[in-house]
């Protein structure tokens, strides 16, 4: 394992319950995430993993429970406010802006840092121009990091799946988040693409010290790169601990092998 300073608790999820109509997506989930760690959320399909991420970044408002991020406790918050606190995200089904180029997609990640007003932008003048160039430089660094230089001006809709996933990671990174939520970043990839993606995730974690919460189905990947793992099943938490602890947890084994509860 990599040597990093795992810090204090940065994100704390307490007793979250979320229901859609009659369907209980999450019930009474609590866990925490420490600074600089890679925290995995695993569980069978429909366990509520994505819903959990949606709660963390404010897309869903849970009926009960709270989320505490950087010491600030909240029950309801709009996604863009969560973003401004330093949370970025990728999606299970790629949610890139399909009509825009790779570069523009990444530039949207910088949107919170851009301050030029409408008139400056209208005439591409003063602060607007300076900002564009300054942020372009930063975005180019991310493009270099993700090795996607050759496609920077391609509309993302035309890219193959694996590259789209990479661009999406890039967009999240462009926001320079403290907490990065990755929803199945390796789903549907071949082995090489997975290896690349693992490398990027670990590099991000090490180089930028970004805290990562990751949903993944590939157990090999999860066991390799995560520090601690939460296991969900039918919206309930059934396991929490280091990869080894989770691997040997009877409830987890049952859930994955489908033993009757």
């Amino acid at each position: 394992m990599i040597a990093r300073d795992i810090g204090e608790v940065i994100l704390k999820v307490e007793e979250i319950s979320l229901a859609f109509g009659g369907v209980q997506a999450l019930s009474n989930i609590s866990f925490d995430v420490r600074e600089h760690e890679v925290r995995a959320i695993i569980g069978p399909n429909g366990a509520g993993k994505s819903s959990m991420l949606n709660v963390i970044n404010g897309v869903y408002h849970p009926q009960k429970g709270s989320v505490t991020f950087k010491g600030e406790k909240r029950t309801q918050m709009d996604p863009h406010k969560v973003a401004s606190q330093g949370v970025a995200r990728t999606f299970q089904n790629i949610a890139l802006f399909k009509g825009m180029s790779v570069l523009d997609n990444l530039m949207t990640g910088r949107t919170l840092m851009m301050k030029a007003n409408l008139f400056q932008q209208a005439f591409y003048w003063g602060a607007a121009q300076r900002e564009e160039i300054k942020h372009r430089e930063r975005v180019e660094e991310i493009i270099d990091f993700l090795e996607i230089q050759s496609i920077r001006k391609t509309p993302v809709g035309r890219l193959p799946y694996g590259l789209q996933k990479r661009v999406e990671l890039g967009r999240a990174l462009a926001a320079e988040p403290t907490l990065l939520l990755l929803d199945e970043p390796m789903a549907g990839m071949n082995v090489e693409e997975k290896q690349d993606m693992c490398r990027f995730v670990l590099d991000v974690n090490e180089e930028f010290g970004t805290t990562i919460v990751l949903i993944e189905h590939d157990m090999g990947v999860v066991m390799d790169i995560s520090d601690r793992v939460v296991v969900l099943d039918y919206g309930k938490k059934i396991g929490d601990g280091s990869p080894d602890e989770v691997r040997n947890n009877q409830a987890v084994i049952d859930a994955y092998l489908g033993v009757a509860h």
Partner: protein
Amino acid sequence: MFYRENGQYKTSYKADQALFPIVQDRIFIGLVMVIAFIVIPVFASEYLFRAIFIPFLILALAAIGLNLLVGYCGQISLGTGAFMMVGAYAAYNLAIRIPELNLLVVFLLAGFVTTIVGMAFGIPSLRIKGLYLAVATLAAQFFMDWLFSRVKWFTNESSSGAVSVPELQLFGFLWNSPVQKYFLVLCIVALFALIARNLVRSNIGRSWMATRDMDVAAEIIGIRPMYAKLSAFAVSSFFVGVAGALWGFVHLGSWEPAAFDVNRSFTLIFMVIIGGLGSILGSFLGAAFIIFLPIVLNQIPAFFGIPISTATAAHLESMIFGALIIFFLIVEPHGLARLWAIAKEKLRLWPFPH
């Protein structure tokens, strides 16, 4: 062969982010400018100015405004005619009530009034999307139709319901001849096209496009949906309002609400679709297409010497128009601008396509 970026190395991001980073594009734009500012004024007849160039430019401006909203921000509007109407009547009232105002200031203020109205009608976009929003904007259309025909204050108590504006006076000169009017409109439209182009390559343009492509993801990356949508409505309405003021003052001279009815709204939507959603150039192409189509259609029977009644001609025109809309949506939903882009792609490779 002739259109390619090979060998044009850029050494700064500034150069790469220029308006037209490729030399050939700059040449093309330069040519267009030369034609618009020099060739046309020298050679065109009065009829061409009146019937084609002036309406084309003004409608292109409105189409750009609409395209910012529909093509870039993904918020459909079927009420553009109404917002042009607001611009026209705002300008009219400003001009007759405060005669000292410079005409350009009148146009700008009319744009601002339209901005406010447009934002008000944009508020539903925060709750509803797509077709529902289209209906909300239709509401604007019918409400404005009513407002400007029934509330007499707006028409300065004119008994016929029609209003007419005095001769165009600007900087102490009368701008009466078609050429002068053409220049006035051309300068305004060129400036606004530049502004639109700048906006869509800036942060605000990206936040519009992000909202269009995937609003949930946009919000998660930190784009406030309210700001993105309302700013699109605001900017779009400003463009459309100025276009409306120009349409009234420069093109029509006198008008009644019917000049900006629901058909005007529909034609503008078609301009944007046929020209290309999300393309400033497309707005011009679409406007040109819609302006020329009826003129061409009217000429064809006469050209072949087939006598047809005006009613028949009108019905045929409607059919061809409908068929063309469907044709465009099926063959190239991204419009003429996309065809232009494809042509450029081909040119890059020509004459060695592989």
